[in-house]
């Protein structure tokens, strides 16, 4: 049982990293949102498995929160936003896909090296989990950096949060309060950013960051 539970946790966390790579690969907003929903789904599965393995029922709540909010509510809402803004067909990656993938591979290698070195004495399950979580965080940041569109950056930010939740649930004995606050912070950030998107749109007729740079008088 011990070996199997470890393997499944490992697989789920690894799939999360894989989905992060998928996110990096998408250059259309609607596809990006779909992949983000998948990302949250995998996270929910992973958290639920952790809840089962650690026999910590409160983690199921976290899994449900991840599933309901991140895999359903937020993607649906984001999709409505981009449809209303009329940007669901836009291509918006700044860096080429190949380069982004290469950088992403480097980041995963880096986080493995760092985490496996730092947590030499920790429980192996938590150890692998932390290494994957750090990869997800870094890949989320990479998504934020390589997107030109504000919606893309929002999604990068939220997949970064997913990495944090993965890290939090991987370590034993994390209190539920923290996870709820993390989940709600994401929700609030989403609401705030959504409102901002509409305000920006009202003012500038676009959510393209480059357009905003032009409004500030910068030439690119």
């Amino acid at each position, binding site marked *: 049982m011990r070996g199997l539970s470890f393997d499944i946790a490992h697989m789920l966390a690894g799939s999360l990293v894989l989905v992060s790579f998928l996110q990096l690969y998408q250059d259309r907003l609607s596809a990006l949102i779909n992949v983000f929903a998948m990302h949250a789904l995998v996270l929910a599965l992973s958290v639920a498995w952790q809840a089962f393995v650690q026999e910590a029922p409160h983690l199921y709540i976290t899994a449900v929160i991840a599933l309901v909010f991140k895999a359903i509510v937020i993607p649906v809402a984001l999709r409505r936003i981009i449809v209303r803004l009329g940007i669901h067909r836009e291509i918006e990656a*700044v860096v080429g896909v190949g380069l982004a993938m290469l950088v992403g591979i480097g*980041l995963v290698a*880096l*986080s493995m*090296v*760092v985490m496996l*070195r*730092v947590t030499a004495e920790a429980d192996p399950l938590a150890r692998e989990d932390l290494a994957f979580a750090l990869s997800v965080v*870094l890949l989320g*940041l*990479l998504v*934020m*950096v390589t997107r*030109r569109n504000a919606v893309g*950056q929002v999604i990068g930010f939220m997949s970064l949060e997913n990495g944090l939740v993965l890290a939090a649930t991987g370590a034993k004995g994390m209190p539920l309060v923290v996870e709820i606050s993390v989940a709600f912070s994401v929700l609030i950030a989403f609401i705030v950013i959504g409102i901002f998107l509409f305000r920006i749109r009202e003012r500038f007729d676009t959510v393209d*960051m480059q357009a*905003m*740079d032009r409004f*500030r008088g*910068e030439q690119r």
Partner: protein
Amino acid sequence: MMVVYALFGVAALVALAPIAVAFGVSQGKDTTTTLIYGACLIVTLGLCTIALLSLFDVSHTISQATLPLGLPWLGAHFRIDALASFFLVVVNLGGAAASLFALGYGRHEESPLRVLPFYPVYLAAMNLVVMADDAFSFLVSWEFMSLTSWALVISNHRVRENLRAGFIYLLMAGFGTLSLLLAFGLLAGAAGNYAFDAIRAAPPVAGVAALVFILAIVGTGSKAGLIPLHAWLPLAHPAAPSHVSALMSGVMTKVAVYGFVRIVFDLLGTPAWWWSLVVLAIGGATAVMGVLYALMQRDLKRVLAYSTIENIGIIFAALGLALAFKTEGLNWAAALALTAGLFHVFNHSLFKSLLFFGAGSVLNATGTRDIEQLGGLIHRMPQTAFVFLAGCVAISALPPLNGFVSEWLTFQAILQSPQLPSWGLKLMVPAVGALLALSAALAAACFVRAFGFTFLGRARTPAASGAQETDSNSLAAMYIVAALCLIAGILPGVFIDALAPVVQSLVGGRMPVQTSVEWLSIVPIAESRSSYNGLLVFVFMISSGAIAAFAIHRLASDKVRRGPAWGCGYPDASTATQYTADSFAQPIRRVFGTVVFRAREIGEMPPPGSTEPARLTVELHDLIWDSLYAPIAAGVAFAAERLNYLQFLTIRSYLSLVFTALVLLLLVLAIWP
């Protein structure tokens, strides 16, 4: 138990701040001024009594208390030992005098509601610094002291100069606190035990101790005004309202001295041989430079501020001597030097407060601090003139007042330097002695100038000729402080004996018991070496003066004749033909100023036949500012200019910066062996 009562007093002071705000809004400023300063007066008198009781307590019990504040695993420790109780006396005596003075002076202030809430907190913070018994409480109180005094400095914020003074003060205070923070961090060591008891039990090793010593000099010296860290002091002290100036100059610099003594004499263990050389050199240089600066100033309060720097130099020179004697194991001589230094701390807090009160009264009566705009005030403000003169006599170290006693004791300690085995100190101490002698002489010249051109001669402006005597509360405060100066001058034995437990705890020796010496003399070492009797000098002065007056008025004529003022030989009796403060300082400027200030005098004569006036322009350069502060300011401005473009990046660039920084840090972590 004493410390608990004292903490109640401090809590009362802190509680006065919101009361000041509430009353200021509802009751108007006059009621609030009376209420707050009256309450401060009562509380500081109470705290002073507590401090005196613990200082004169024969059993010398150390009173401690721990409050559940501050760092959760540490708590806030407070303690009153002999050293703390002495400095509590200094703080609260100064605080009480300033509060009494402010009962009258505060009514004439422009915006008292900007001063009232901060004033009691400032007093409370200074008390807390002295009572703190762990690094955390010490630093928090220290920073509170800095911030509240900063708020008081900029209370009159419509004057551009005050804002600049406040800005420079804030920078220097931050720098000083940073040094102290590092010093305490090093003292606490890797274990991180910030309680002073733990630090005392495990003093740091030699290298770390040297670093702590340097940081302590920088941190406390920047607050005390040691050269070259003094730049803020002559700007900030005059900018504050006068009773606050008195507190800043008379009391806050002493709290900085307390910090130095606490760290170097108490916490740091055995001193290394070179520490005393550093302190002596800085002290001597500060004394001479301070008084030279003071002689060049026209602003009365700035003269007093620079004179504070000079006196801090004298105090630090005495502390350096004590350190030297302590290092060499001459405990009796160390006790003499330390007593002299601490006694000067007490004396300076008295007469500097007195002089600032006087300057405040003058400012209030005439609306100006420029000596060249004053004159003849002795006719209009005779009582202020009298107490100001007493302060000048005291600070110029003339017997029978208190300034003489502590400086005389300092010189007695310097005369013991041949006993020192090390040649460096043997040569250094007499040199510092010469510097102190020079500064004492220059200080006398400085205060002849300050008194003479403010109070004597004829009024130079209509403002000066229309001055009115100040109110009775202010006068009462000045008379009380002047009386204390006289008492400390003619009964120094009592004060020296009161300092004995303080000195005993710090250098392991004490001066001989003075109260048993006959006729109130003081004997620093032995009767065969030297002794001083302030009472004898005082009685001689009074009796010779009385006999002379009697002889003149009885045996010659008792008629008083008033003649016209002598016009220096000019036929035109304009007040502008009087001797000016700048011309009084000219000989000293010519001797020292050409080197120290690169002073230049440019005389412009009009061509023959022209009716234009001739002009004499004097150029002075503050070399310390030009060579130390100006380059740093220019460097910061340059860097800020270069980094400015970081303010205008795109969101994606900021994200990329954060991302790159994170990845780089992780790489360092991965590559680090």
